[in-house]
């Protein structure tokens, strides 16, 4: 694993000048992940913030071969690219001197929801690729509509906190668990505030042959109604409250990679975010308690699995 100085000295593969928002979690995640390997990289990206923000023609922030085709098919698209690589290498049509690795990027909309089938298919087929989901908890690119990754209680434009319904009523889908159920060699959750952990996981995922998965917490000041300068702190709080546990499942073995010395109450993460503002009004405490109970249960479940062979 590279130290900070080594990482900083690596070639920048994701250039500045892109159009992603100030305080967006995506650029630090992508920059770091692209630095975590010395192999050649080829990426696909689902329609969404990352695609729109990095490629408005004739500009591109990508210094690696990059493709976007549609919203729900980042995994299927990279399946084609990765397979073509094997086919062309076999037939001597491209040089085989340097190892090439493949990454599919998608937001929670393109991954948890519309792209779940395509992701599942690519994982099952065993393509040699890393799928990285940047999870900002809603369809942020199109104006903060709920996704199945949206936290319970969150105010979004399609689950507004109204007079009768207090924001999103459902618990978020546990996508990482669904991916783990595909028995892939490596799946992990990470967060950009813990760059060391993220870099280590990305390097590991990219070194493994076969389908690997990273689900990365990605703060979104626009959709979270939070301050851009608070993003990294909010990412940290998502792990300190155990809303977003950092763990990995390698060859079926569960390892929790970060255990907060003192588990913080979920209010610490909710309060600085305007999307949860209504939960701090009279009657909101019931929902916060529900969220806390669910987090506690999930955290206990994870700790119980710690060190165990789960598939």
């Amino acid at each position, binding site marked *: 694993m590279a130290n900070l100085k080594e990482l900083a000295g690596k070639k920048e593969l994701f250039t500045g000048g892109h159009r992603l928002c100030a305080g967006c979690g995506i650029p630090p995640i992508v920059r770091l992940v692209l630095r975590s390997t010395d192999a*050649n990289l*080829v990426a*696909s990206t689902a329609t969404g913030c990352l*695609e*729109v923000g990095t*490629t*408005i*023609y*004739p*500009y*591109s922030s*990508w*210094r*690696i*071969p*990059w*493709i*976007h*085709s*549609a919203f*729900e*098919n980042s995994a*299927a*698209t*990279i*399946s*084609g*690219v*990765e*397979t*073509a*690589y*094997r*086919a*062309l290498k*076999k*037939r001597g*049509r*491209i040089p085989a001197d*340097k190892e*090439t690795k493949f990454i599919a990027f998608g937001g929670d909309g393109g991954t948890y929801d519309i792209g779940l*089938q*395509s992701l*599942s*298919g690519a994982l*099952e*087929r065993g393509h040699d690729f890393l799928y990285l989901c940047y999870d900002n908890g809603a369809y942020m690119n199109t104006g903060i509509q709920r996704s199945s990754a949206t936290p319970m209680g969150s105010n979004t434009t399609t689950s507004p906190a109204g007079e009768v319904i207090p924001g999103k009523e459902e618990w978020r889908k546990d996508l990482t668990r669904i991916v783990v159920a595909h028995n892939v060699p490596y799946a992990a959750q990470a967060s950009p505030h813990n760059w060391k952990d993220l870099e280590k996981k990305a390097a590991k995922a990219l070194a493994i042959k076969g389908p690997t998965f990273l689900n990365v917490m990605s703060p979104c000041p626009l959709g979270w109604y939070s301050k851009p300068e608070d993003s990294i702190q909010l990412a940290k709080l998502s792990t300190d409250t155990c809303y977003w546990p950092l763990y990995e499942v390698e060859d079926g073995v569960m390892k929790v990679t970060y255990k907060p010395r003192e588990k913080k109450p979920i209010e610490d993460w909710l309060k600085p975010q305007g999307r949860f503002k209504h939960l701090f009004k009279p009657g909101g405490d019931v929902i916060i308690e529900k969220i806390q109970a669910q987090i506690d249960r999930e955290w206990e479940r994870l700790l119980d699995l710690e060190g165990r062979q789960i598939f």
Partner: protein
Amino acid sequence: MATEKSNEMQGLTGNSAVALAMKQINPDVCPAYPITPSTAIIETFSSYVADGEVDTELITVESEHSAMSASIGAAAAGARVMTATSSQGLALMWEMLYIASGLRLPIVLTNVNRALAAPINIHCDHSDSMGARDSGWVQLYSETVQESYDNVFMAVRIAEKVRLPVMVCLDGFITSHAIENMATISDANVQDFVGEYTPETSLLKDMENPISIGAMTLPDYYMTFKKQQSEAMAEAKDVVEEVSAEFAQKFGREYGLLDSYELEDADVAIVIFNSATGTTKVAVDELRKEGFKVGVLRIRLFRPLPHAEIAAALKGLKAVACLDRADSFNDFGGPLFNEVRSSIYDLEDRPKVISRIYGLGGRDYKVEDAKSVFEELLKVVETGTVEEMTKYITI
């Protein structure tokens, strides 16, 4: 290479002929999802892969949407890519069909024509590929097993020359499952005809000078790309003619943009696609014996539309019936009718044109059906009036 005169004759179904063509081409990548009635293409090709008769990388995707998505990824990476589908499968690919053509990727897809649901039906009509007619794909229609087989080779050449995807259409069950005695081409001659695929640029071609494919494009450039795509489609017509001429010279089988039968002195004609052409030709032969001047115009190339050639072919006729195996649900005739009618609009003395919708969901189209359409056309000529411009027949 000399003309291959001693083509080996084989009894093959449309599906096995297409699978054989794919085997002889030995594409780099084949992402595929099976669907009736094109399933046998993918099954047969899978066994070629399993037996090592091709070294194509087969991707058994989980849906047709992913089949086309993976085709796009593989083609963008520089691979020669082929796949096959039908009906709902083509419908599920819809979004990606436009992206394949917009990204100018020369993917070749065989579409075995089948009706679209609802009601669900597995039999032949053209509602699937007719719906995809504006998706930016070159569309070749095939009358016979022989032509389906031959079109697959030509499709590869056409696609790679104009950098547009090409769809080869043949009739579900009627052509896909019927055994026909047909001539095959030797593997060596196939390889010589299709040649090596060497795209100018691709994702994997030059890792040191990486390219981005599929960028967000705003009003300042979007229309420029579409204009180029439109120009490529216009160019495709000439390329189809050139490639077909080269094919005829090498293998002795001639295919035009259109196939005219007994049209020179005809008063009336039926314009039609695919397998029903043969049935219509029988009706023509029988009516000709009775002294009626009738003919058939089969459309082989529908995208791009050979509108000038259609107008030239129908010039001098008095009445024409366009037989659509699909409805546009516009209360104004099928897609073929509208396009043929528009193609002949500028003729000085243009024929009357009627729309007849036939054979939906596999409904039989018989010689008698063709004859009754000709009778209607002759009546239009006799009376000078069209009583019913659009009508369902074979119902």
